[in-house]
């Protein structure tokens, strides 16, 4: 059984999540800039590109806030702040190696509940400024949730089913020999899709789409904008990191210590998600909804059935 982490881990967790998010955003910025230039840059240029997200963060900190008429400031603020808060709370069950900040018996449900909070928060963000385009963005994210939440829930249920426990630590322990990603490939792939969808990212970026001038984030400026967009990176880092204990064997691996394996696997998943943004076009949600309900839900249910039969026969 994994031990509980010491108290300082509670302080370290948000710092660690933010640093990983900054590095990922930097990596993404380098890829974008290189794509615009059409060739890889010199080391010095790469450094400048990689620091772009940080420069943008400082710019937003100093930016003059913009107000809209008859805005529901309270609800909008709650929505903006709730995105990073929910991401960090969801990360509380995240084992670095084998030691999470907290390992409750229902860790997987906790993770899912916090994701749902972030889902509700983006609608609030779109609602707050009393602006049509941002409201459209908020509603787009609700529709997106209706498409991805069910397959996503079945996927993480499958991992819990394979381990016979909702405790993240026990899910990791159950993958000592064989990673869940190997014999639950459908659940793993659906999880990766929904990881992009819940951080409204890449092909699932319609809620913040350009056709609505930035959608839910349209009216946000200054610190508000920084908190929401930073929260989105945090959400992506946390969901990518949780795929490691759920499907990729957590800290299990030869030679390296468990925390190094966790970091390495998280980095690989994050790289896959960043690549996914470049490879796939933005999806309109009415299209993805039909695909999710007609293809992904039955597929994940069949996957759960296979896992259930294997577990019963063990």
């Amino acid at each position: 059984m994994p031990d509980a982490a010491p108290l300082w881990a509670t302080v370290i967790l948000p710092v660690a999540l933010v640093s990983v998010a900054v590095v990922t955003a930097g990596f993404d910025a380098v890829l974008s800039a290189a794509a615009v230039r059409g060739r890889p840059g010199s080391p010095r240029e790469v450094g400048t590109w990689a620091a772009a997200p940080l420069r943008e963060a400082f710019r937003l900190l100093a930016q003059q806030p913009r107000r809209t008429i008859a805005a529901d400031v309270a609800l909008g603020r709650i929505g903006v702040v709730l995105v990073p808060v929910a991401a960090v709370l969801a990360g509380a069950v995240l084992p670095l190696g084998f030691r999470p900040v907290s390992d409750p018996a229902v860790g997987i449900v906790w993770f899912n509940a916090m994701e749902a909070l972030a889902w509700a928060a983006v609608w609030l963000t779109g609602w707050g400024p009393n602006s049509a385009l941002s409201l459209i963005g908020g509603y787009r994210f609700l529709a997106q949730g209706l498409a991805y939440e069910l397959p996503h829930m079945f996927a993480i249920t499958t991992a819990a089913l394979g381990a016979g426990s909702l405790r993240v630590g026990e899910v990791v322990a159950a993958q000592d020999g064989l990673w869940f990603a190997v014999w639950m490939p459908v659940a793993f792939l659906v999880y990766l899709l929904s990881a992009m969808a819940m951080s409204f990212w890449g092909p699932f970026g319609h809620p913040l789409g350009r056709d609505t001038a930035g959608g839910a984030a349209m009216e946000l400026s200054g610190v508000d904008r920084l908190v929401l967009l930073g929260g989105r990176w945090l959400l992506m880092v946390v969901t990518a990191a949780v795929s490691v204990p759920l499907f990729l064997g957590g800290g299990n691996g030869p030679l390296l210590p468990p925390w190094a394996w966790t970091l390495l696997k998280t980095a690989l998943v994050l790289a896959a998600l960043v690549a996914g943004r470049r490879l796939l076009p933005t999806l309109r949600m009415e299209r993805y909804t039909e695909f999710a309900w007609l293809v992904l839900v039955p597929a994940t249910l069949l996957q759960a059935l296979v896992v259930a039969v294997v577990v019963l026969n063990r």
Partner: protein
Amino acid sequence: MTEDIVFWVLAVLAVASGVMVFRFDSMARATYALLLSLLCVGGEVLLLGLDYLGVVIVLMMTIEMALMAVFMVMFMMNPAGLMPMSMLHNKKGAAVICTTVFAALATGILLARWPARRGRPPTDPTMSLGMSLMGPQMLTMVTLGMALFATIVSTVVLSTRRGRYDRFGDDLRTRPADDPVPGGGGR
């Protein structure tokens, strides 16, 4: 001591935000005040040591309230609740019903003889909850699930304006179906 403080903070917050549901004149604020109230209830359940139930309340209620926002747009006479509107309907009837229910519950609480705890809490409350729900009452649960699902399907079928003749034509042979929104399944 800490538990007492947490209990009272959550309890007061739950009741206060429950009251605010009826004080706000904005659909969005009322929805999220209700969500806050239900989240506090989830916290109280967590405090009782029922981890699974508590977290599931948080999960389900959040999703439920977000869905309410979707339905608000679909069915309300005031789409998206953009105009201020009263959350109070049938004031007198509601007051009578609420007072009666409250009086009945309070009497029950005061008059009932509360049993002392027997035995110990189980090591895995989620497991015991599942066994007591799904063990002897499996047939009830399955029937209930089917009944609920049938209700949902028939409600949607009854409320939709477009039937299969609109979609597939008079001889039901039009392929792909003539839908206002194309969808991505390629049917």
